């Protein structure tokens, strides 16, 4: 895992998944989060893009939780779909 920070952008990489969020995107509805994942060797794709409050400590690479309004949603990376899907 590695984490870098500059003025407006924050990266956090765990395994094949790199979480990016833009600080200036934050409002009362949360911040915008992106994850770029290595779909297959050498090829990175955007696998996640949502706005909400990332629950502290919930980003575990292939899994994360986001609060949108009052609802907490769990997203899990689907290896077959190559993107994060919301779990029921």
């Amino acid at each position, binding site marked *: 895992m590695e984490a870098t920070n500059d003025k407006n952008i924050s990266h956090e990489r765990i395994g094949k998944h790199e979480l*990016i969020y*833009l600080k*200036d*995107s*934050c*409002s*009362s*509805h949360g911040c*915008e*989060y*992106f994850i770029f994942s290595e779909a*297959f*060797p*050498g*090829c990175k794709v*955007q696998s996640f*893009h*949502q*706005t909400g*409050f990332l*629950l*502290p*400590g*919930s980003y*575990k690479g*292939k*899994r994360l*939780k986001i*609060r*949108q309004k*009052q609802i*907490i949603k*769990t997203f*899990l990376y*689907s*290896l*077959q*779909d190559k993107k994060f899907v919301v*779990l029921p």
Partner: protein
Amino acid sequence: MNKNALLNLFVFCLIFLSSSTVYPFPVFYTCENEVILGPSKIDSTDLFEKILLLNKDEQNKTISSWCHGGKDCIERFKFIVSFSTVSEKLAMKVFYKELAAIKESSESEIKNPDLLESVKNLKDSFYELQACQNSMNKLNGDDYITQDNSLIIPYPFHNNYMRITGCKSVSGRVCKPVAKNKIDTVIEEAIAMGTDPYLAIAINFMEGQPEDMGNLSLDPIGVMDIIGCRSKREKKGGKGILNSYQTYYKVNKSVVQDTKLSNKLKSFMTKKGTSLVGNGKSHYCYDVAGKTKPRITTIPQKNSCCLELEFKTPESSSGQVTHALTYEFINRKVNTRYKGKTDPAWRIQRFNGFTNLMGGAEAVPAWRVGVNYRKNPGYGQQTMDYILNSLMFNPYISNKINKEKNDQKKKVKSILCSNKKDGTYYYESNKYFDKVKSSVRLGVIADKFNLGGGFNELTPREQSVIKRELLETATKNSKMPNLLRTAIVTKYESQVSNALKIDPNNLFKKTNVSRIEIWDKKDADVLLSRGDFDYIMDTWDREALYNQVLDKTNLKIHELEQSLNITCQKSYTKYLELYELKQFKRADKEYVLHNNCIHSSDDFVNEIYNGNVNRVGEILKETPSFTRHAREGKALAETIFSQERELASFEESRYEKMVLVFSKHPKATQKMYDARTTRESIGGAISRISELPGYNSSLDKGIRSLYMHQSALDIEIDYPDAYQEYFSKLYKDRRTLEMASDYSWKKLNQGQVQDILGKILKN
């Protein structure tokens, strides 16, 4: 005024009176100590004096605007009448009576004849406007109540915000107007808490559907903040840390004395029942870790954020106090200016935040994507439009507010009067409607395009937003495949998934394509040996098998998590039961148990996903309530550990060669990857789906459209080209909200009003 000026004015009036689309008129109001006075108390002398201070141009503009405004106001008055069961004849009688009364009282009131001489021509149109405005409030409010006790709320425009009426569109089958008793409650509560009741109602309409009226709520940290306890955000949870919907804060324990807030809460509780308020003191306490719900106690609780209440109220009132604090939250927001701006819309915007590019990530409808709220506070503007074009002139609402103010003997500050000196003012009735309508979309990206910035120079967020717009406008963009609009996709997908109970993404089967077929179809310029090609294909095929197995295991872990949640829910149910029985100490214990259960469950599941068998074992020892899940949890952790290790070692062995091929031919490699499967034919799909339970032929149109849409998405989209095409040709017709919306943004016509009213009265 000279003869020419009068002639100009006359011509001006003729132009405006013959137009049926123009609908603005000045709305007058008088402020005293930031409180808005009733329409009958509008001070005409003050207004005329203000007009005398204007320069000639401004005076002419004002006079012109008021001249046509009188007729427009009457038209709006008739519109409000047509939205109810009032007879227009009776309504007009009210108007003429009001006009006569105003003329009589004003003639005697304005004592300075010189003053009136210079604004003589303005006088009649002003009186007419004022009488019109007063009459709206003097209509019988009961004519706006339906048989099932819903409230009819006239709103003049055909736009995305017409949902305030209860009807999302003119053609929709059902309308669900707001319940009268919910509006009554919001008015009563708002006045008790010193909140502008029009604003409170408007915000409720902005935040949800009419049936959600009165349901605003605060996060736990919001409650602490309003009480006045300081807090600091923390990265992780822990002892004494507040978990506000899984976001963590360290809140300072304190006992806050705030007489103003306490008095408001006293009014609020008195309104709920005089038996709820007595002499003495009580405390509203929320433990700083949020382990228990807020409670009313005689003495301050330990480790809590408490508000001293300068009255006694029973323990059962804590929920009411929590609810009352949502109104105080509104008060605090609108009392803070945004960067020195004076327009109230900026203050109201604080509820929605100040993004510069309404994103593709939020659940925001496509027509609103890309608005810059830092330049144009659209949320605040629409709230103001609801107040000016609907709520203020709803006879039921305005009568109820006046009655409630008298009953509670309260003067409540108005958002219209905030930071205004005493005096009489006016708004153009359409000021905010026009601002929302002409809000610029995607301005931040358009500016970059105009400076020569290409798609690849946009930030990931900007790319995501513009991609959404490109998909939405695909049919008009020659560089895009032929895609359905998002709203249509959503409509068909929900039809299909409701009827067939299957995920629309799995609606069409994909079959594998033979390697020889992919080899034959691959781009001729890709210099790849057959041996390397087979190596790549073999890697992908084997990787897909690993992925399939791993995804299945991941889903099993998720099922285990759901089962754990049911276990944790038991203590929460018990907590609620005990709370109802007022056994607070035992209830608190159950709440703590529930919280611990949730945390342990989260840790447990995370460690299973990580394949950390040892840690899973440790958590099981610490949490006896998970014993029944022990065997499954351990087994899943072991399974995922070995499956991930196998996949990783496989990928590692092939990584170097795969990266080499991909870096040489990125696009062609991607194409080969996608070519490995093909979708079944539409005929085959329909015949297969028609055998499924829940199928009926009315689904065919949606299934065919989704098939076309998904097939079009298989083609790789050249976003940089599509972006160029969009800004060169399409953007000019998608620049504003009005342009991108499906609604006309014109006033509702008589037929539309009757359609809507018919549906409302049928409910």
